[in-house]
Structures are given as C-alpha cells and as structure tokens.
C-alpha cells in the first residue's frame, strides 16, 4: 500500500510548531493531544525542518528532577531557549509514493526510537510540506491484524 492511501485510511492529526516557539508552548501543544508524541517543526514556507519528541521536551523542562546531569545537560537546564535550539534537524520523511511495508526498513524507525524516541513518520510532498503522519501504533495494529494466524492444534 502506498503512503498516500494509508493516510486516507488512517487520518492522523500531525502536531506542528514554529521554530521560534518556546519549549513551554511546545509542551502545551503535546499535552493538548493525548496521543501526540512527536512535534514537527515547520519553517516560514511550511516545510518540515525539525522534530521534537515528547520525551525530549519532558527531560528538558523537568531537568531539576533528575539526580545526575552531564555538563551538557547542566547548561541546557539554565539556557532553555526555543524549539529551534533543541529540535532534531535531520528528520527522516516518507514520500507519498513510498510503500508503507518498506517504511520500517528504509527509515530504521526502531533505531530512531532508541536515539530520539520518534513514533510518527512524517509524509511530505516534493516541496517537503507536511501531508500527514504514519503512526507506529497504526503500523503495529495493521501488522497484527494482517498476520497469518497459527492454526489451533
């Protein structure tokens, strides 16, 4: 199945934020959507230019609760800055003509999850404008439902 078809069957509201927003505003956006775990940062032309995950926002804003912090995190705790200062600018996006079945392989989502806790794969057009997101939970649900059942003994 192509990603364009998938988006029609599984319409998911993509959470977006401007790069100059504060981290507190980003946290509010994430908290407003109970299922939202990934924020996609858009530039002035509406193109995807970064990603910020729930876990990253939470660790930055709740840094004082952590017993140990590296030197890097100590400085981050007192210089929070904007979304642009913390977003991951190497976002892996899927295109509309990709096959959904290949996405997990091509985007190595599990490694991305280990490193950046990415759960939504953004789908973009040729100008890198966001068309929607493919959610890991939907992929899992689909995999379970379509997997061949083991016949009962």
């Amino acid at each position, binding site marked *: 199945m192509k990603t364009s078809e998938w988006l029609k069957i599984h319409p998911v509201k993509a959470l977006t934020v401007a790069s100059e927003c504060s981290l507190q505003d980003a946290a509010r956006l994430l908290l407003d959507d109970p299922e939202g775990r990934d924020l996609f940062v858009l530039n002035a032309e509406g193109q995807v230019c970064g990603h910020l995950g729930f876990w990253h926002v939470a660790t930055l804003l709740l840094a004082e609760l952590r017993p*140990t912090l*590296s030197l890097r995190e100590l400085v981050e705790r007192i210089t929070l800055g904007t979304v642009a*200062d913390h977003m991951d600018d190497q976002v892996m996006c899927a295109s509309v003509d990709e096959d959904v079945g290949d996405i997990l392989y091509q985007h190595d989502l599990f490694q991305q999850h280990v490193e950046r806790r990415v759960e939504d794969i953004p789908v973009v057009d040729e100008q890198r404008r966001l068309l929607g997101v493919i959610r890991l939970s939907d992929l899992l649900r689909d995999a379970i439902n379509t997997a061949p059942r083991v016949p009962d003994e």
Partner: protein
Amino acid sequence: MEILLIGLLMISGLTLGALGSALFNVPRVVGYILAGMLFAPDFLGGLLGAATTEWTRPVVAVTLGVIAYLIGGAVTASQLRQLGWTIVTATLGKVSGSFVAVLVGFTLLGTTVADVPGWTFTLLLAAIATTTAPAAIVAIIHQYRARGPLTTALLGMVALDDMLALVIFSLVLAAIDSAGFTSAIPAVIWEIIAAIGFGAAGAYAIERAARYLPEQELKLVALLGGIILLTGLAETWHFSPLLAAMTLGFSVRMFAGAHSEPLFRPLEQLQEVVFVLFFTLAGLHFAPAVVLSHAGLIVLYFLLRAGGQIIGAMVGARLAGAPRVISHNVGLIMLPQGGVAIGMALMLTSVPSLGDSALLIVNIVTATTLLTETLGAMATRFGLARAGELSQSAEASEKSKEAT
C-alpha cells in the same frame, strides 16, 4: 597482571564507594580512593606483582581525553551568550582567584621540592587548583531541591570552570616542557594552534562520518577511536592532547548543531567508569609517607585554593553587578575538587622532567580531594542554605532521616 589489577580496582572501588555512601553517607569518591590505596604497590598490589604504576599512563591519557571532550562539548557559543555576564565573570574570577592565590602563596612562602624548580611545582599546583567537581555539587542541589538565582549561577559556573581549568593546565604543561622563556613562547603557540587545528579537523570528520553510522554502538567506536587517535597524534607531534580533545568536543557540538546528543550520550555514560578509574588509580599512587611528610603543604594548598576562589568569585560576580546572594556564596559553594584535578595530577606522572614531584602532586591532590569532597560538600550545603535556596520540605526530610 595489570588487567587483573584494573578489574580488582573497579569492582572493589564500586563496592567500597557504594557501601560508604549507603552506610556512612560519605561521598562515593572516598571509597574509590580507599580501594586504590588497598592495591598500592606497598600493599596488595605488591603481592599481585604490580610493583610499578607506569602501565597506568596510557589509560590516564585516553580517559582524560574523554573527559576533555565532554567538557569541550558542554556549552555552545549561543548558550555562552545566554548564560550572561554574572556567570562568565564570576567563573573567571573564581578560576583566576584560585590560580593566583596558590601561585602567589606558594611563591611567597618559598616552597621548594626536590627534582624540579619551585616555580614549576607551584604553577602546576595552581593550575590544578582551578578545577571543580560538578558531580558533588549537583548531587547536593538535587538532594535539597535547591533553586534560585545562586543555584542557576552555580550550574553555569561548574560547567564553564573546568573548561578554563583545562586551558590553563595545558598552557602550563606546555610552558614547563620548554627549556626557557624564549623557547616557551613558540612551543605554547604551536601547542595551541596545532591542538585547535587537529581538534577541529577531527570533529568535522567525526560529525560527517556519524551521519552514515546510524547505530549508537558504531558512533561510540568512531568517538573513542577519534579521541585515542588525537591523543596519540598529540604525543607524537607534541601538541596538547587535552586542548585537542576539548576542541574536538566543542567543534563536534558546533558542526552537529541540535543533532549532537548521539555524539555525546555514549561517552557521558562512560564518565562514571572514567572517574572510578581516576580515583582508584590516584589511590594506587597514594603514599602515606609522602602525605605525612608534606602535611603542611596539603593544608596550605587547601586553604589558598579555598580563599582564592571565594574572593575571586566574589570580585568577579560583583563586577557584573550580581546580587549579594550570589557574590557572597558562590566561591564557597564551589569548594569540591574531584575527577578532573585527579586526572590532571595523574597525567603529570608521564612527564619525565617532573620526577618524584609528580608523585607528590598526586598525593597532595588526592588528600585535598578527600578533604574537599567531605568539607566542601558541607560548604556547598551551607552556602545554599544561607542563600535561602534549599527546599524547606527537602531539608526537613533530611533532618528527620538524620534523627532516625
């Protein structure tokens, strides 16, 4: 036999550190150093056949390179601007205060040691005096849930001051390696320029390569390989390995931008391993006879460092117009000295011209680390309490724990 000894050092250090912390509420560092002392060549180390400690040099060189990389990557240029003048000038004041106090104090008292000129010994101790132990300070901030302007200034300062300390130590090391003042200047210039050049070039290569290495494990190989290669090049071409590793960290952070976390996290997770190694190795060099015969020097170093940094930080903070709550407490709070100081002292054991003075410096720094990790921790708590930045509920809960 050395591999067996390293394993024993790490496991016994971990055991003594954890037991001391859980049963007697002493910093883990104390347990690490005691474990090292147990395996010194005069004690159990002799029975194991580890009569010398020369084999520790490459371990120290590489592990200190890892720490320098992390210190270099702690802050970006834009964060430095955000930190504000109070933190920057108070850090400069604290670092220069401790350096000048130890330098002037030891010089005026005419301290001399065998093997090396007095000024070499004094300069090295003064450079080491500029370091702080962030982990001890952050542990107290967390334990008492401290928050306020002093805590904020403190968090910025502990991240910055080891950076300055590494620069000063590298320059001093370059200068004492030279034969005289006229030859020291070109040597120091070469040490700085080559270190910055190789560090920046290495950072560019690592950042580019990391884009093709999706797995964390492969990034760790690239990072450790890069640091070891840079340290080896520095040894071969006589430039500062510490400055080079620090430049590597700073430049990797700059080139990778917001995507830099995967290039630091794997090594940050190794930091405690590095510090356990440093403290146990320092304990391994611990010689009771040297400590007892130089007890006066140890006390003098402790007092000069403390006095210098309290006054220096106060002057620096006042120059930036900081409120009294910051300027009068910040130097006192930063008394703990730890892993970086120990690492620097251990590095001196590989400088042939220092002879037995290196062992004396290791012992002075180890003994004062034991003092500052215990007394310094109390000073940190006292300063934060005086500033009214400790959480009332956290203080009450600590008092009830002590009462039971």
